[in-house]
Structures are given as C-alpha cells and as structure tokens.
C-alpha cells in the first residue's frame, strides 16, 4: 500500500474542491471561436471525452507505445487513465522492455473566457508505483499537481489579423516522488500552434481546401527541471509537427529534437491517433456521467 504524501493529498483535495465548484465546460478543445487540437507531447487544458491510441514514439534508443483514455465525470471535470509499453535498448546495455506504471490524472477546468479564448485547468497526475514491469517502471509513486492553460489570439486587433489563428497552451507541474531519494522536479512545457481552420473561417478564406484547412502546424516542447542543485540539467525535447483534425478523430506527427545532450541523442519521432469520444458517442460514452453537456 502506498501512502500519499501530504502535498499530494492537499493537491487532490484542491482538485476535488475545484471540481465541485467548476463552471460547466464544453466538449473537446472548443473555447469561444477557437478549436484547440489535442497536443501529443504535453497535456492540453481540456477536460474531455477522448481516447489517444496509439501514441508511438521513437527517441534515444527507446520505442514507446502509449494508451490514454479520458472520461468526463462532470462537465469540466475528467479523469484520464494512461499506460505505456517501453522498449529500451541503450548501447552496451541489455534490452529492457515492459509496461510503465499506470497514470491516473484528474483535471478540472477552473476558468473559461470564451471571448478571449482562454482556459485554465488544474490537475493532478498520479503515476502509480509498482504497477509496471520491474525493468522499466519506478517502484514508488510520483504525484504531480499541475496547472494548464490555453490561449487563442482571436482577440488581436485588425492590424494583426493574420496572427489571430495563433494559440498557445502551457503546463507546469511539480513532480513529487513518493518514496526513495528521487529528486523533485518541475515538469513544464507547452505548444505554439497556428490554426489554418481559424485562418480560413475567421480571418480570410485562402482557398486552402478541405484537407489543408484542417491542419495545424505546431511546435510543442516538454521539459523536466530537477529542483535540487546537482540533480542534473533541464532535459526535454522540442517537437515541431503537424496535426490534422477531422470531425471525429485527429492524426498528429512531430519530430522530437533533444534540448541538449543530456536529453538524448539524435532526432526522434512521435505520432498519435486520437479519437473524439464525445463526437463518436455523443449520447452515451461521450457525455459526462453527471450533469449533462453544456
């Protein structure tokens, strides 16, 4: 039995309290006139009904295949469950393969401002220690209270109208290992994206055609910074790529460029197939369990 540290208990209590008082939310990725596609290297700020399977990445002698399912419990409050399979083969070391720990991540949309295409979400990621394979997964749990946001720039003045399709998302979390001598760390990242759909429908119809207008060029970045001095450098990747968003699913592909030598060797690749469950099953699985849809 793993005991939750006090900080994690407090964070969980905050998440639940926010869930009870949260304003109702809309379904996947829509705030005001903006549609945010789901990001693949970092968490986006929407509590939605969605399934990401598979997310496949090849980076630094490691191949990962991940599964993530998010279910809305109340409008604006969702719980995500995720698990991944890792196949690592460092040069000079024996191959290690198996499942990583289960991750359970409740998140709550605490503030929405449709006019300014802004959303703020809090959450907690619980990486459940001891569940995964011994050769891959940590034996102890890690708790990461997180704040996430999204902001579209549709409110820019006419003189900057070609920047209106721009949007950013961000996430900052404080990872607290539940046992051992693992250092705490700041897990942070985000995305800068340019929606061709927004350009086409809200700024100027450039005649891009159905397929191209559903593309979103994006650059994601996902970093980890140890908080203890001497615990190492900030590591992570910068991921330029493309997301194509359809009516019920999206496809995303990004390169993974290491931030520095400590982050890994060579450029990797990540791709994801993502299903919008609220659009696939609008009357059953795609609705919050309590409270209906707004």
């Amino acid at each position, binding site marked *: 039995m793993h005991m939750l540290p006090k900080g994690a208990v407090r964070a969980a209590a905050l998440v639940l309290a926010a869930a009870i008082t949260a304003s109702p939310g*809309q*379904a*996947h990725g*829509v705030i*005001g*006139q903006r*549609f945010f596609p789901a990001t693949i290297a970092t968490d986006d700020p929407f509590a939605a009904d969605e399934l990401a399977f598979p997310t496949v990445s090849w980076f630094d002698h490691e191949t990962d295949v991940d599964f993530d399912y998010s279910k809305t419990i109340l409008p604006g409050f969702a719980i995500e469950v995720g698990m991944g399979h890792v196949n690592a083969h460092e040069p000079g070391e024996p191959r290690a393969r198996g499942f990583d720990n289960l991750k359970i991540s409740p998140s709550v949309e605490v503030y929405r401002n*449709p006019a300014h295409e802004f959303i703020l979400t809090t959450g907690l990621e619980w990486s459940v220690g001891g569940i995964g394979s011994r050769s891959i997964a940590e034996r102890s749990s890690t708790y990461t209270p997180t704040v996430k946001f999204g902001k579209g720039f549709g409110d820019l003045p006419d003189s900057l109208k070609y920047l209106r399709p721009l949007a950013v998302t961000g996430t900052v979390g404080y990872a607290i290992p539940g046992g051992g001598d693992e250092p705490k760390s700041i897990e942070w990242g985000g995305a800068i994206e340019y929606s061709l*759909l927004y350009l*086409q*429908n*809200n*700024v*100027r*119809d450039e005649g891009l055609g*159905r397929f191209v207008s559903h593309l979103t060029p994006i650059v994601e970045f996902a970093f980890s910074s140890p908080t203890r001095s001497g615990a190492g450098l900030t590591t992570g990747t910068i991921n330029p790529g493309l997301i194509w968003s359809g*009516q*019920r699913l999206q496809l995303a592909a990004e390169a993974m460029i290491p931030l520095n030598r400590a982050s890994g060797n060579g450029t990797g690749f990540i791709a994801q197939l993502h299903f*919008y469950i*609220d*659009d696939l099953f*609008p*009357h059953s699985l795609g609705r919050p369990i309590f409270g209906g*849809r*707004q």
Partner: protein
Amino acid sequence: MNLRVLACCALASVAAPLSAHAFLDHAKPAAGAVLHAPPENVMLLFSDGLDPESNVEVLDASGHSVAAGRLMISGNCIMAPLRPLGPGKYRVVWHAVSIDDHRTQGAYEFVIKP
C-alpha cells in the same frame, strides 16, 4: 428563394454525418472576401446537421443587423437573406448547435467595394 441555395442545402443535408461538432465548412461570402456587388444572402455550410437553435447575424459597421427576413436552416446549411447592401464592411456572427447539442461559434468580415 434562390433555388441553387436550396439545392445546395438539400445535397449538404444528405452528405451530413450523423452527429458531431458543427464546424464551419464553407461560407458565401467567404471570410475576408472583397465584393464588388452586394450579396443577396449569407450562406454557411457546416460539417454537421444543425439544430433550429443555430443562428447567424449579419451586422453593418455600426453594429446594426442587415437581415431582410427569417433565417433558413436546413440540414447542415444556414442562410440569412439580406437587405440591399451598400459599400462598407460587414460582420457575420454565427453560432451553431449541432443536432446532438454540441455548440460552436464564429465570426468573420467581408467588404463591399463601391
């Protein structure tokens, strides 16, 4: 009533998927269009079937509606007939409610040159 618009709406209704978010697929006049003749109506085509609660407003530069009659909503198409328009900038503001109650919204401008 413009028969071509009606035919377009009918065809679009047949092609519409069962249910999902209604995103704007096509607009006439288009976003950012510069016209030399005033349009008789604004027609928006969505990616999903629309609930009658959906709406579109066309506003002149001072924010007054330039609608000339009732909206027509059919399948995934919504059409707003317009009064005879003079030169100027106009803003189209829409919100769409898909048949399974997903909500989306948007706005864009077009210009009529003298």
